[in-house]
């Protein structure tokens, strides 16, 4: 029999603003995502120089995870289930442009390593010392039904104690992150309807 699981925390990042559990915690004027993400990093008091080597998709996912994962999650069995629409296309395009000129052909290894979307999952795992299950799906739009089923399955089959789920979309400066924690205990039931409500806030 399937047990109920719960959404214990949510965060959203878009339009130069970050929300936790529906409350705005940081808003700034920024010319672009690079400026916003740097200001958000500083606002959160993070000290992690590797952040500045990440591509924008990873920075977005990293900031969301910083808002939700607490020290008690470190080295815990917290799985990661992420998805988006554009995969790593933003970085793929930049990389392709960097190698388009055969007369000036110097492929950047540091850019190339981010030409896969699930690298952002790895960055979060390294930061929070997670050695847990992880997946990254590509959908046309936020798929509450699959995300819900997958997270519940991980917990119900004891593959994970909790699951950090996220829609992490970034392409051409257009970005939106919606992350949430699912666990067996909490107040907000974890189902398709509650996820869609939280996503559309």
């Amino acid at each position: 029999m399937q047990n109920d699981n719960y959404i214990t925390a949510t965060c959203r990042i878009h339009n130069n603003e970050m929300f936790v559990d529906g409350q705005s915690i940081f808003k700034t004027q920024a010319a672009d995502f690079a400026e916003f993400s740097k200001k958000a990093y500083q606002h959160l008091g993070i000290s992690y120089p590797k952040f500045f080597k990440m591509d924008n998709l990873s920075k977005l996912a990293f900031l969301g995870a910083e808002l939700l994962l607490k020290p008690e999650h470190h080295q815990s069995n917290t799985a990661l289930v992420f998805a988006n629409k554009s995969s790593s296309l933003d970085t793929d395009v930049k990389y392709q442009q960097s190698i388009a000129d055969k007369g000036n052909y110097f492929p950047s290894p540091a850019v190339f390593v981010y030409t896969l979307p699930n690298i952002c999952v790895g960055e979060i795992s390294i930061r929070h010392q997670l050695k847990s299950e992880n997946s990254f799906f590509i959908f046309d739009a936020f798929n509450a039904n699959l995300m819900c089923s997958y997270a519940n399955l991980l917990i119900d089959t004891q593959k994970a104690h909790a699951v950090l789920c996220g829609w992490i979309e970034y392409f051409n400066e257009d970005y939106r992150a919606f992350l949430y924690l699912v666990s067996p205990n909490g107040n907000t039931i974890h189902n398709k309807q509650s996820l869609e409500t939280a996503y559309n806030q």
Partner: protein
Amino acid sequence: MEALKQELKVKIIEVLNLEDVSAADINDNDALFGDGLGLDSIDALELIVMLDKDYGIKLTDPKEGKNIFASINTMADYITANRTK
């Protein structure tokens, strides 16, 4: 030689996205990897690309990198002796 060392510090900071590090923070003998600037294997590959792109030096043996990229001093010595542009 001193101008080249200063140039290398600026390039390394820019190419490797070393936020909150200035050229003045890097001493000529500081280890670039390990306990020094804390660079990693991807950074090493970027430095190999930088040698090729900016100084016309193609490293054919990656093992050479360990000695060449030990510090700003060793990089500057190697570039001075081998640059083609």
